[in-house]
């Protein structure tokens, strides 16, 4: 019996040991406070500024020991944030509004990407250059309700009868669905990522951006926090994080390679050429159009228009409650009290 029990006991010990390993080690944190950020997706060029800030020691100088974590899938970051497993999550403006509609007390505290990245994409000789050409075509989406709503809005604006357009859920295999000609176009692929990737592979993607097709503009990627975490201590940490992140993005603008180096350090499986090209394409939308505004600025009027659009399309049901965004933790925003949305 002992011969059988001993390996079993050892194994249990081993399993217990594996569990323990995940606890954040206290050894590294002396004066710095730990701060966990969950990305919206696996590390990629959209996060180059954050990795640049991390690599150049901006977070450390801000007294933060930042841990950057990739999520299992894009639906999870807000759930983990709500469960208190992370301090800050990167998500999408529509996802945040949906979560709030479900009762989550979450708030956007800064925009990582100012514009929609979601786009209507088609390939080569089957290119769709104008939304009117969608009539009678098959469009692949990732099966998200707001993507279907984008498509409806686009078709309405273009005067196309929606019943002539077939929408197919192809999951996250949007590019593959186009390459295999299973669909005529896709709605959901990012112009700065899949678009750039296909461009670099000479597949001649035709890209139409949401805000040019009648969908109200929005911040594709936002930093989201729990409102309950924003007490004095939490607010101080968040402010320092966003300041350091802004500096990381300025460093990225000066020298994109710095961000890409840090990114490849985090995941060696990424392709350097692609990531550099994506950073180049994305740089203009990392910063607000209006130079007067700080990094991360969210336009309350744009948010309101987008929220109205979601409500009109039946995506959210609850009447507008407390503001879904605040700019008060952004660098230098103390000087501009008019933009505060927290309250």
């Amino acid at each position, binding site marked *: 019996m002992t011969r059988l029990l001993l390996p079993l006991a050892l*194994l249990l010990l081993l399993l217990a040991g594996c569990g323990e390993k995940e606890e954040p080690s206290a050894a590294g944190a002396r004066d710095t406070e730990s701060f966990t950020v969950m990305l919206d997706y*696996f590390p990629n060029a959209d996060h180059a500024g954050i990795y640049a800030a991390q690599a150049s020691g901006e977070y450390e100088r801000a007294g933060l020991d930042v841990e950057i974590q*990739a999520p299992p899938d894009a639906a999870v970051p807000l759930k983990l944030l709500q469960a208190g497993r992370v301090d800050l999550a990167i998500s999408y403006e529509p996802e945040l509004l949906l979560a709030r509609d479900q009762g989550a007390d979450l708030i956007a505290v800064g925009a990582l990407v100012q514009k929609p990245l979601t786009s209507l994409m088609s390939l080569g000789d089957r290119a769709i250059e104008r939304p009117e050409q969608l009539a009678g075509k098959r469009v692949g989406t990732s099966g998200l309700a707001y993507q279907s709503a984008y498509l409806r809005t686009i078709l309405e604006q273009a005067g196309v009868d929606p019943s002539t357009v077939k929408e197919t859920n192809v999951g996250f295999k949007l590019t593959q669905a186009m390459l295999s000609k299973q669909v005529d176009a896709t709605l959901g692929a990012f112009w700065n990522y899949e678009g750039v*990737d296909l461009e670099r592979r000479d597949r001649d993607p035709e890209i139409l951006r949401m805000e040019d097709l009648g969908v109200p503009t929005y911040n594709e990627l936002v930093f989201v926090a729990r409102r309950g975490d924003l007490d004095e201590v939490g607010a101080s940490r968040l402010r320092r994080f966003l300041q350091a992140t802004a500096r990381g993005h300025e460093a990225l603008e000066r020298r994109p390679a710095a961000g890409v180096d840090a990114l490849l350090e985090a995941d*060696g499986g990424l392709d350097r050429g692609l990531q550099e090209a994506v950073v180049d394409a994305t740089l203009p939308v990392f910063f607000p159009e209006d130079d007067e505004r700080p990094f991360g600025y969210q336009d309350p009027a744009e948010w309101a228009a987008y929220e109205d659009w979601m409500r009109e399309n039946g995506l959210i049901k609850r009447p507008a409650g407390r503001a879904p965004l605040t700019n008060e933790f952004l660098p230098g925003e103390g000087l501009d009290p008019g933009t505060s949305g927290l309250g």
Partner: protein
Amino acid sequence: MTAALIVLVLLAGWEALVRLGGIDDLLLPAPTQVLDALWTDRDLLAPDLAVTTWEVLLGLAAAIAAGGAVAIAMHVSSEARRALRPLVIGSQAVPVPVIAPLVVLVLGFGLAPKILLVALVCFFPVAINLYDGLRDTDPDARKLLRSLDASRWQTLRMLELPGALPSAFTGIKIAAAVAVIGAVFAEWSGSDSGLGHALLIANGQLATARAFAATFLLFLLAVCLYGAFALLERRVAGWTPRSTPGGP
């Protein structure tokens, strides 16, 4: 020999299909392109292979320990049998893609959820085969031991367990072949290394050849594990009489 020939013909056909433009190589790379990715990305894939192998080995060990314990408990106690049988069968009915994200949410992104999911996939074949093996003991031998006044424990140790070895190995070999599935789903639900992770990253940037190379390594891992246990079986349970299929 014929098997190798069939594989070669299939590979040649595949190569021709892609080379002659039948299929976009971003969707399906040619075998030579996969081979090329295997070589050029070796520094990238080797650590991932090591990670996944480790996950699979630990999970398999956990499944063998737990499956063995449950099978023996079910064999010696009818109460345990009644209590555990639905659970054992239920463990096989759990769709891994559904449960993997939940397990990861609870256990985090470390090694623990990978081990648990591999063990979950492997548990059923291990437990059920050992249990059947224990039950199938030669009744005459059992009668003999009883007439010699052997205790229940002695019967188990001297007769039933050794007799169940071939059947147990069948279960373990099946488990070894499917273990990688558990590891891949676990890695897809949250990880920063391993072949499943490599697959995800490669797919995300249309590095299809590398994705196929990672898949090939998973296949190889399963085959090697199976082979290792088959070898071990021959050493440990080589004495068992076995009829050769197709023989006289």
